């Protein structure tokens, strides 16, 4: 059932080892108030696909299980802290999805006007929901979910200067993580298999290039503002066709070195959240820009109940138009978020992304409810309709699915 390696450390390279040494060394200087704890989650997941797969190697349903414990320790009255968060997944069919990663292994020192964060970490930038253009520090763990919210741990040295005039973050990203892609038995996936052993890089240093990033962020009244610049290997690859030893046409990822400037702004006024993210990227084909802009409005206490209903609207633009490697070049996201605010924290999120010049629709539904104090039941569904041949989502046209997850938390 589960052939191949159970645990594929995504290249625990030199940088990871350096980070590990730093973290362990820092713990030796522990003093003052201590606190340490373990927490985490274990998930059982079942996916059911509505249609026959495009590739006979792909399954019609799939079981999977994941485990993600987290260890936290802090000392010096919380000024020093250490986190270790490994992750492992075992998948019934897809050897590529059976994988492991160190999501976090980091030490943080917090002082009055600065913070130093060293090790493997996850960093999120941005404000919009439809896509995360500005968010660039971590690589996507592509085998986890189509939504791209799952990220691989990124080794880094991050120094933050925290002043009245805002926060300035300097990043040295010590080592590059390749994106993960579904294997032959994986589903959903692109029609052509991605062959990660044929990966190419623009940088001669390949995955050892040290990428740099800078971000300024500040809150001014109702506005939360971020301006960032990244110079390094693009987290999004381009693909070149290659022919495998068995004569199969496959896709080889190619990682360009890019410059990306980003801005993200949110204005929060009463029940309105106004959001904007925009980027300008050069080094990956022609220079282009992309943006997401929209709002979220919440009706609190609908129908005299405790429930809140939020409505989302975002416009997704990419200056490359139809040639963009993204499915979101001229699209509209319309969504609704329902929170019952009951004891079980029942939540429901529905969204549809509509291609403004085509019939393509991508629907998604996410719902969750707590059972007792330690279990959570989640439902997720995705439906792709009217996807034309030149759409980036074309490979997923047969991959409508429903996913049930039971999570156990400790």
């Amino acid at each position, binding site marked *: 059932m589960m052939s191949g390696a159970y645990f594929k450390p995504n290249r625990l390279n030199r940088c990871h080892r350096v980070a590990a040494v730093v973290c362990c060394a820092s713990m030796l200087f522990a003093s003052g108030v201590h606190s340490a704890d373990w927490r985490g989650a274990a998930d059982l997941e079942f996916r059911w696909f509505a249609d026959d797969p495009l590739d006979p190697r792909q399954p019609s349903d799939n079981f999977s299980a994941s485990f993600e414990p987290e260890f936290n320790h802090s000392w010096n009255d919380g000024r020093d802290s250490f986190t270790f968060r490994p992750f492992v997944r075992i998948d019934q069919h897809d050897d590529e999805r059976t994988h492991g990663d160190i999501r976090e292994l980091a030490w943080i020192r917090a002082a009055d006007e600065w913070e130093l964060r060293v090790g493997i970490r996850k960093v*999120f930038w941005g404000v919009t929901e439809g896509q995360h253009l500005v968010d660039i520090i971590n690589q996507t763990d592509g085998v986890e979910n189509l939504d791209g919210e799952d990220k691989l741990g990124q080794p880094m040295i991050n120094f*933050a200067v*925290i002043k009245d005039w805002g926060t300035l973050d300097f990043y040295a990203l010590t080592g590059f993580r390749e994106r993960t892609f579904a294997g032959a038995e994986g589903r959903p996936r692109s029609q052509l298999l991605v062959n990660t052993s044929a990966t190419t890089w623009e940088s001669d240093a390949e995955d050892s290039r040290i990428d740099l990033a800078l971000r300024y962020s500040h809150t001014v009244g109702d506005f939360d503002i971020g301006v960032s610049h990244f110079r390094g290997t693009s987290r999004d690859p381009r693909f070149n066709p290659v022919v495998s030893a068995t004569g199969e046409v496959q896709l080889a990822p190619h990682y360009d070195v890019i410059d990306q400037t980003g801005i993200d702004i949110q204005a*929060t006024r*009463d029940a309105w959240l106004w959001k904007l993210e925009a980027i300008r990227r050069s080094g990956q084909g022609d220079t282009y820009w992309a943006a997401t802009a929209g709002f979220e409005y919440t009706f609190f206490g609908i129908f005299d109940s405790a429930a809140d209903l939020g409505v989302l609207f975002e416009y997704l633009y990419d200056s490359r138009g139809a040639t963009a490697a993204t499915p979101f070049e001229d699209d509209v996201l319309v969504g609704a978020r329902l929170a019952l605010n009951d004891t079980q*924290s029942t939540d429901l999120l529905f969204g549809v992304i509509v291609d403004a010049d085509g019939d393509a629709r991508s629907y998604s539904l996410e719902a969750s409810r707590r059972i007792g104090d330690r279990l959570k039941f989640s439902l997720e569904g995705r439906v792709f309709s009217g996807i034309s041949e030149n759409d980036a989502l074309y490979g997923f046209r047969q991959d409508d699915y429903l996913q049930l997850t039971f*999570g156990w*938390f400790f």
Partner: protein
Amino acid sequence: MATLILLAPLAELQAQSPEEKGLEIAKEAEQRDNGWGDQASEMVMILRNKQGQESSRTIRAKTLEVAGDGDKSLNIFDEPADVKGTAFLTFTHSTKPDDQWLYLPALKRVKRISSSNKSGPFMGSEFAYEDLASQELDKYTYRWLKDEELEGRDNFVLERIPTYKKSGYKRQHIWIDKETYRPAKIDFYDRKDALLKTLMFLEYKQYLDKYWRAHKFDVVNHQTGKSTELNWKSIKFGNGFTDRDFDQASLKRVK
């Protein structure tokens, strides 16, 4: 002349309207609770439905007193386990809307959220967000109703009407202890002016020889039969917190 001067304060006292008296009592209560600096506490909230089924929430809270404005607070959830590490950072303001950020640990994402949800339930409990928010003088108008004995102690009973937008209450009746000026009980009336909830402040202890803190809040919803008990496990003053403990960088370090 001398007689006039002597009589003047008395005349003023007699002329005091119920509104003036109410405001005076509220001001005195606020005055007595000034200057505590900062506070760290751990609490367990027990939610009960009509059938008596229970579920619990565990919360750690840090609060910083801000002179001339509302307090800053950082609330971290430990239970239920699926929301462990989720945290709210709130800058309360007396007149303008509060600033509030939510930290989602799985995504490492800080989200600025709307603070206009005053009347919504806090974590599925019978407490509304506005019940647990920092109680600033300007948030209400006051009127003294009567004096009344409550559980063997003399109390003032005031009516207070929220001045801030989006409150779920038309009015509240609050019992304030005459000796200590600490709140003893609040009756909440919904927007239709029907009695909605009663909140009791129990198990008071005094800190730093001055500040009274209830260690148990008991709230009963008369319309649904549900109730919530909020138990303080520990309260600690003099933690040396600064603004730096209440910023987004600190929010992201929450565990």
